[in-house]
């Protein structure tokens, strides 16, 4: 392996410069915070300014541009009114994506939370808690692309009679069944993609919920036990209500993640076999098909669908305080 040290030095130098420049900016902000009679509003402005500036340039502006583009045609240069939205509501392909997305947002958060909760409840008092939680988190670390690869391999299909290379078909065959094309046969293939998504997300839910369960005061469960409550009753009547805020956080975070899910579909089916979801269809339309307007309209629709979730989340937090 030829490795050129000299070629690396400008990179590392630039890295140092970058960090130094950033440190200088941060330093200035802190100095300004310390010195001078800064009023509340001034302090807030100073602290928020860098983040808000970046957000305005990097996300808000693109967001508004997308909104505008959603009323234009393929090249994004002539107005077409609501045509793109009409297209979403009439095109079979877009409707399939919409239907699949709704299936995803119902199933993924629910399954993820249930698996995470069961697992968290089971391992939370265990000596191997940290290790056990890490096992579930591993899929997240190897990335969506890696996860897609892992599951494509599980679902791999070989015709009946041949050696199966996919675990799932091997099991089916071992039980006397016929090998199935899991990722091909609609509509069930959507569920198999959802399994992959749940697989990547459950660890996150389990970690959060394990923490919440561990935080339930022992006196409460002890008291209930002395009163003769069964473990199941304790779980339902005491643990669950105590961790409600965390449950909410988990479900909502999963909802947002699910709406944005794109990589799993991309690596596993490429949106074929009626498995497309809105986030993926948007990418196809805007970039692969050059239909910028339709892509933008799909993005806006996604935004509209997620907004209630975000608003609800903020409200819930306000209420908890």
């Amino acid at each position, binding site marked *: 392996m030829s490795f050129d040290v000299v070629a690396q030095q400008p990179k*590392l130098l630039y890295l140092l410069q970058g*960090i130094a420049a950033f440190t200088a900016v941060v330093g200035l902000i802190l100095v300004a915070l310390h010195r001078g009679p800064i009023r509340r509003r001034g302090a807030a402005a100073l602290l928020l300014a860098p983040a808000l500036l970046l957000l305005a340039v990097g996300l808000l502006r693109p967001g508004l541009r997308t909104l505008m583009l959603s009323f234009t045609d393929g090249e994004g240069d002539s107005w077409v009114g609501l045509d793109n939205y009409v297209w979403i509501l009439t095109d079979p392909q877009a409707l399939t994506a919409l239907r699949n997305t709704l299936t995803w947002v119902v199933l993924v958060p629910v399954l993820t939370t249930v698996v995470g909760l069961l697992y968290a409840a089971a391992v939370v008092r265990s000596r191997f808690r940290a290790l056990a939680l890490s096992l579930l988190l591993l899929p997240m670390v190897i990335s969506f692309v890696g996860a897609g690869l892992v599951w494509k391999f599980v679902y791999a299909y070989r015709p009946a009679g041949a050696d199966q290379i996919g675990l799932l078909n091997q099991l089916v065959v071992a039980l006397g069944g016929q090998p199935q094309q899991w990722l091909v046969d609609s509509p069930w293939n959507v569920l198999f993609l959802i399994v992959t998504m749940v697989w990547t997300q459950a660890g996150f839910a389990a970690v959060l919920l394990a923490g919440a369960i561990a935080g339930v005061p022992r006196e409460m469960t002890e008291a209930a036990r002395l009163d003769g409550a069964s473990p199941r009753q304790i779980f339902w009547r005491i643990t669950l209500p105590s961790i409600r805020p965390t449950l909410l956080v988990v479900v909502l975070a999963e909802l947002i993640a699910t709406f944005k899910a794109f990589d799993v579909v991309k690596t596993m089916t490429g949106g074929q076999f009626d498995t497309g979801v809105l986030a993926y269809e948007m990418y196809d339309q805007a970039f692969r098909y050059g239909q910028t307007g339709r892509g933008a309209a799909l993005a806006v629709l996604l935004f509209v669908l997620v907004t209630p979730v975000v608003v609800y989340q903020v409200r819930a937090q306000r209420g908890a305080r």
Partner: protein
Amino acid sequence: MNGVRERLASRTFSVIAVVIAVLWTTPTFGLLLSSFRPEGEIKTTGWWTTFGSPHLTLDNYGEVLFGTGNASGRLADHLVNSVVITLPSVLFPLVLAFFAAYALAWIDFKGRDALVVGIFALQIVPLQMALVPLLKLFSQGWLFLPAWDPTGPARFGHVWFAHTVFALPFAVFLLHNFLAALPRELIEAARVDGASHGTLLLRIVLPLARPALVSFAILQFIWVWNDLLVALTLSGGTADTAPMTVKLAALAGTRGNEWQRLTAGAFVSALVPVLVFFALQRHFARGLLAGSVKG
């Protein structure tokens, strides 16, 4: 009676845990094992047959690491690029989001709630739609911002910028959740003592917020390290600036037929985040937990 039921319940729970753990690790294990099998065998027999006749090889890894692919043998270059990209992309949003979260949680000002909702909502702007405007910004400038179109290592700046921007909404969201849940009395007490916001921020809130900061840093590290979309669009694809993910994606072969390399590549690329994760996982859980328990 109670004791028996309890033991039964706890046994049920243990069984559930074991089943889930097995379900969650077996697929990865299968792929890991496959990555050590010869190409021909991966494509014709199941990985479980390896237990009958172990026939393992490092060929796939050899090909990925030292293969004669495009810009061959320069994986080390790409590794350095990944490090150079990841460090600032974790540090910058961490600090900026901490500042913003502090202001949103502990300074009262008009329009604060709307701002919180607004920043949260930005989480949903799809990255894909933000890339074109961002590229335009770099190549043409915007309002008072001049064009910024460097060559060579300075292109890392683009990638840092993009990752920082894209990370901010979630970072602010996470840290704000955490900071807003800190005990009010602590901060009020310090305020009464006449501490400035600077002092509060550094002396009181920062140490308390450490678990949340560490959690975010780990999440962001994993995200940036595994990112392909931003890297491919902004880093320019050559050994000068492209991270490992770009290089590994190229290894799949033009017609996607070399996926035994992808198997090995996925694990090579995941090695660093897995190590970081296992080194820090204790802190990771703690940070996420502390935030939500009181949330």
